[in-house]
């Protein structure tokens, strides 16, 4: 077990939760005391809610809202400054023919591309998000992870997407994961912290619930499903469990924290299913880019095509939207 969390939480926690993070043993008791998640039940609910039929004005609203929630992402070994610059251009004006299309929420890149993205987005209000902490595996030492984070922040990142040490989590070393998140949060300064749980590696919904609470307790502003490098990435039932966590956190503390499913959400149809889940599981107040994001690379173009279909009355095809 790692040393007990050393510093006090950043924001004062209500008494029940302050006790939960007093030491390793308390943290474990708290996380294991959370109500279980029934796999059949949560999957059934997710599938049931996915049959909502969203049409006309409600669909148009959903498409524009979804566009404004996209973290336009490129996280490839082959990323270049040119690729990031064109992605920034796409973020600024997603559909060049239609200036009324909302801008996306952020562009998400590796730390070494933050400066390039920042320059391309100057004055637009579109955030730069950077992955950090030895993304995607998280397998490095703490000083490297912190240096990674600080570098991204210094380069101008508004948001940091960190990965947790899944090895530590799965071996029950919750204290280590808690400490790690807290230290990264401190290194973030004013930048917002999204904590990637990599739910595909946590395997059970009970683990997803525990990891969500762990990240919320340690000060994560957002909990995020996946790196996009592990299959399965985001799924609807996993997102349900995470939305329940932020809803329960609000009920307990009054604070609103965000959720970001990432990876595998490619179509407008899928995005709308997620928005319905946000609406009916967490609540309508989460329907804002401040509290819900999509981590995606190809979703934006489908949203743009469907938006055109709604307005023009016919489908135009992929050649009418820009590839990046």
């Amino acid at each position, binding site marked *: 077990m790692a040393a007990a969390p050393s510093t006090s939480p950043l924001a004062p926690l209500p008494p029940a939760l302050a006790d939960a993070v007093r030491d390793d043993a308390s943290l474990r008791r708290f996380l294991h005391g959370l*109500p*279980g*998640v*029934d796999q*059949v*039940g*949560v999957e*059934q*609910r997710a599938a049931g809610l996915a*049959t*909502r*039929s*969203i*049409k*006309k*004005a*409600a*669909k148009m*609203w*959903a498409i524009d*809202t979804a566009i404004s929630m996209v973290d336009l992402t490129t996280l490839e070994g082959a990323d270049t400054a040119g690729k990031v610059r064109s992605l920034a251009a796409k973020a600024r004006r997603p559909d060049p023919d239609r200036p009324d299309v909302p801008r996306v929420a952020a562009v998400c890149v590796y730390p070494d591309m933050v400066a390039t993205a920042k320059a391309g987005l100057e004055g637009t209000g579109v955030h730069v998000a950077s992955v950090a902490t030895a993304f995607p595996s998280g397998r490095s030492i703490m000083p490297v992870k912190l240096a990674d984070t600080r570098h991204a922040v210094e380069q101008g990142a508004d948001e940091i997407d960190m990965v947790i040490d899944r090895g530590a989590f799965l071996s029950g070393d919750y204290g280590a994961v808690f400490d790690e998140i807290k230290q990264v949060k401190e290194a973030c300064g004013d930048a917002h912290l999204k904590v990637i749980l990599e739910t595909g590696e946590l395997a059970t919904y009970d683990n997803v619930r525990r990891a969500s609470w762990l990240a919320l307790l340690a000060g994560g502003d957002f909990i995020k499903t996946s790196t996009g490098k592990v299959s399965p990435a985001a799924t609807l039932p996993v997102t349900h469990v995470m939305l*329940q966590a932020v809803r329960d956190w609000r009920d307990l503390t009054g604070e609103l924290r965000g959720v970001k499913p990432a990876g595998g959400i490619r179509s407008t149809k899928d995005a709308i299913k997620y*928005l319905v889940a946000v*609406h*009916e599981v967490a609540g*309508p*107040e989460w*329907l804002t880019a401040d509290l819900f994001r999509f981590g995606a690379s190809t979703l934006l173009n489908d949203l743009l095509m469907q938006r055109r279909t709604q307005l023009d009355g016919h489908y135009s095809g992929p050649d009418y939207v820009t590839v990046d």
Partner: protein
Amino acid sequence: MSQLWEYAPAPESRDIANLKPSYKMFVDGKFVEGSGEPLKTINPGTEEVLAEVSTASPSDVDTAVKAARRAYDRVWGRMAGTERAKYIYRIARLIQERSRELAVLESLDNGKPIKESRDVDVPTAAAHFFYHAGWADKLPYAGYGPDPRPLGVAGQVIPWNFPLLMAAWKIAPALATGNTVVLKPAETTPLTALVLAEIIQQADLPPGVVNILPGAGDIGAALVEHADVDKIAFTGSTEVGKLIQRQLAGTGKKLTLELGGKAANIVFDDAPIDQAVEGIVNGIFFNQGHVCCAGSRLLLQESIAEEFLEKLRVRVSTLRVGDPLDKNTDVGAINSREQLTRIQELTAAGEAEGAERWTSSCPLPDKGFYFAPTVFSGVSQAMRIAREEIFGPVLSVLTFRTPDEAVAKANNTPYGLSAGIWTDKGSRILWAAQKMRAGVVWANTFNRFDPTAPFGGYQESGFGREGGRAGLEAYLDV
């Protein structure tokens, strides 16, 4: 819910129902006018008349029973199981082919939301025919001897809550075992049974094997009393069930009854809370609570009662009540004015007896029969809302301190159709399921129906099983 994101109406087109101005009864392979007074069936979601339906008179009952007897003696009773199976498979496939039509028609006539008729009623009805088709040539292996024989002519009377599905539950096992059928659908919901008759005609079943006679209770009574009927299967109220049992005493007719219920859903403090909330909601608000096995009593362990109730109310307030044909409707219309009045009367009694009433503030349509989802807390065993079947979207919440107390309260009812247990502890599920006097016990889920699983009750919930291997016994001479 906030006004931030209003779902636009997404109604299924009512044209898909192929609604006709008038429907006739189905006797001896033909659609014929009945000699009873025609009835007008209405859409409970709007109160408009949907169609005129001809009804049977007692003499029509006699004609239908004679046709069924002829079909039994000459064709169906002696047909090889492999051949019967082909017909039943054909019915199943035709239900699938016409599933949209059946779903829309069911929602129009019954008031249930289209998402339920589309995703539950119609697919499950097809599943019952598929399942029983498989048994038709395997009856020697069902555990009822080397060559179990059919009974003859089965008279079947079904309720209005799952019109098509109940017809399937009744007809499929009867046909698979070699019986012929005279079925009376409920007075307020005859339409899908008559489309099923069209399907049976399309499937080219020999005339008289299935006869469908719309009508009121008197036609049901005439069918029950008919001397040439060998078996009666009834699903409906306990009151009528008792009458039937009295009438049949000493006649030698075989009887199965599936009657009322007042099921308890027990939530222990270690339950998966979010899924339990979901299951409780499904248990009582599915099909507007018009479900004989509905989880109408919620037994909450006191240590989590307050927190659970709060979550439950929040969840119930998101239920969308309204147009049954809207694909986003969660709770549709109450089936009839009569039933709505009964629900109103019992909820008023709940308030008068001192239970705390909470009703969802969801908007209700101006026309049609609607009742907003309601939860009574602080209910005690002595109150009417804890003892009587409300058959509507009304949940009564009681609390308990220990597992023994939970089981004692759950069993403290003259009914015994179903029960639910919510806990993460497997050993407690097995312990409680053994103690529960209920025909179906669900663990960490509720209202799941499958043709392979026998369904039926204890005590005043009736006797006999439907579905599964056990369900075959009801139609075999064993």
